[in-house]
Structures are given as C-alpha cells and as structure tokens.
C-alpha cells in the first residue's frame, strides 16, 4: 500500500515524502507522509512517526532530501539523546517537477521542449495561433495551449517559483510584450526572451511605452536568450538556453549572450 501510494503520487506529480530507517532499531521501517493526509506505515514508534513526519513535510516543502537522526521515540535534543540508540532516517522528498512555459510555437520550440523534457521539466507550449500550437507538432510537450500569454500567466503564475522557467520565443511584440509583463508579475526563476540584439533594443522601447521601466524588472530578462556558445541550429540553441537556466539557478557566472556583444551567430 505504501509503494502503491508513493508510485501514484510520483506519477501524478503530487508531493510526497518517504521516510526509511537506515540505521538503528527497526532498520528498513518505512513511513510515507503526504501534506494534509494521514501517514502510511510506521518507523516503529508513534512519537517518532509524529516528529519525523513533521520534519519530513518541512523538508518536502523545501524540496530537500536528507538523513536525520532521532532517539527511538523521536527525541531530538542532545540531553534526551544521551545514552539512547540513534535512529537515522532517510527522508526522501518527491516534489512536482519544475515547469517550463514556452511562449511561441516556432521552430525552436520543439527542440527546447525536447531538451527541457530530458532535464525533467513539465513543459507547457502556448501560442495564440491554432495552426501552429498543436499537440501533433509538439508531442513531447505535456500541454499545448492555444491562447494568449496573459490568461495563462494569470491562471498559473502563482505556481511558478525559482525552479521554473518562462521562455518567450515569439519575436512578435504583440505577443512578447504581454508575455514579459505577465512573467515579471510572477516569482519565476528564469525569464528568457529570444531575438537579436536589435530586436531586443526595439522590444525595450515597447516595454518602456507600456511602463516596464524599472531596472530590477529589466534585469530579470535574459535577452538575447541563452549562452554565447555559437549555437546555430534549434537544438544547439535549446542547449544554450537550458545551460543558461542551470547556471543562473545555481548562481554560477556563465557567458550569457546578454552580457556579450557582437553577432549571436558568427
């Protein structure tokens, strides 16, 4: 029953955390904790179950996997742990995958969606043109939506956080500008906008016209999108975008096109 529930929740992208005694009394004992639901299984002591599940749900919230130590009845303070055996518990968090929302059903979209899937993203492709935004063209995407950026970001924006990414590939100001405005209203970790340096300069003018002028907002936009690695094909460009996302998420200094000058394709 524990395994079945665990597998169901992982497959349905629902958060769940698995606790396993890896050292000490009741080695191998297993408990499954789920936000707002009853625990399944036991680590061998009701009080230990209560304390460890509480801690594990905190770890799940933070997306962390770790090993935690307790006394046999969930003791955590050094005085209480004195002279008792230690129970070491492996706390494994299963968080929903990060999301990537791609605006624009263009040539680059399929390649980017493919690479994003390899990296484990839940991928949503959105374009207002129903001829282009089809599941047949983007079978690798988890969702393909025919609509404008604003409603999508109003509906889903509050779910987006530091692990998630928005990539705007349309090159079309009537689509780009609302997508950027919508993206800036979220806490999404990465906003990349495709286009040449010239396109980006023009886009900045349009953003100014609609009142997007704050430096802290503009600093969030990675444009031109991707790393300066001389990508030419859609697939190479997808790699450069995803590499930029990884580098910025972990805070590395990466050679972004935004920080370089000169032609994007040499």
């Amino acid at each position, binding site marked *: *029953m*524990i*395994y079945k529930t*665990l*597998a169901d929740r*992982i*497959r349905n992208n629902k958060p769940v955390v698995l606790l*396993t005694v*890896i*050292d000490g009394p009741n*080695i*191998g*004992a*297993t408990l499954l904790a789920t936000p707002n639901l009853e625990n399944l*299984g036991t680590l061998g002591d009701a009080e230990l179950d209560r304390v460890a599940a509480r801690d594990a749900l905190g770890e799940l919230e933070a997306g962390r*996997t*770790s*090993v935690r130590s307790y006394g046999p009845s969930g003791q955590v303070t050094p005085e209480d742990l004195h002279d008792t055996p230690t129970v070491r518990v*492996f706390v*494994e*968090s*299963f968080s929903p995958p990060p999301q990537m929302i791609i605006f624009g059903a263009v040539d680059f979209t399929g390649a980017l969606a493919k690479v994003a899937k390899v990296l484990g993203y839940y991928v949503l492709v959105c374009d207002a043109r129903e001829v282009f935004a089809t599941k047949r063209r983007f079978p690798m995407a988890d969702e393909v939506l025919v609509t404008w950026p604003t409603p999508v970001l109003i509906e889903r924006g509050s779910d987006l956080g530091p692990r998630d990414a928005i990539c705007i590939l349309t090159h079309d100001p009537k689509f780009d500008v609302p997508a950027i405005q919508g993206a800036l209203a979220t806490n999404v970790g990465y906003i990349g906008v495709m286009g040449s340096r010239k396109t980006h300069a023009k886009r900045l003018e349009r953003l100014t016209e609609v009142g997007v002028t704050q430096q802290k907002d503009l600093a969030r936009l990675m444009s031109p999108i991707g790393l300066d690695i001389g990508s030419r094909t859609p697939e190479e460009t997808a790699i450069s975008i995803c590499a930029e996302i990884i580098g910025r998420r972990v805070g590395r200094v990466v050679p972004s096109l935004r920080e370089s000058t000169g032609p994007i394709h040499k």
Partner: protein
Amino acid sequence: MREILNDIDQWRSQNKRVAVARVVDIEGSGPRDPGAAMAVNQDGVVSGSVSGGCVEGAVVAEALEILASNSPGRLVKFGYSDDEAFAVGLTCGGVVHLFIQPLNW
C-alpha cells in the same frame, strides 16, 4: 525513483521479489545525488542506476543477498578509500552511501 516505477510494477505483478537501492548520502564528489535509485528483482534484472556504472555490479550482488537472507535492509558504502577500491571503487574519488532493502512495503 520515477524512472524505475514501471519496471517495479511489472515485476511485482509477476510476483517477483524486488530490492531497492537508494543513494542516501555522498561525500566529496559523487556521480548521483541522494535519491538516485536502482531496483533489482530476484532474477538479478536491474532497473535504474545509483552511480556512473561504477558500483552497480556490487549493488546487484548485495541486493540479491538481502533478498535471499530476508534481511530488512542495510547500509552499504562504496568509495575510493575502501580496501576493495579496485573492485568497486568510484573513479571520481568520492564516497557513496547506499541503503538497500527489500521492497516489501
């Protein structure tokens, strides 16, 4: 774990016994982070991986032994500093701690 669920489901539907090995901790550089998982069925068939291929062979042997002996599970450590480094060491110089247990829950 996600990538091994289908194999586990299939094995369980065939009433095969299954052991699961998971990375619980790494010291220094390790090829896979905690949570990386590999399943082994009673016939020694494998799904998933817990390293870059360095220790999988040894993990299968441990897993089969755990299934055969009805062990509730055990912690196993692989690393460069081990005496058996030549047999099952990690080329990257790190240490990986695995917990291997029967999937009887």
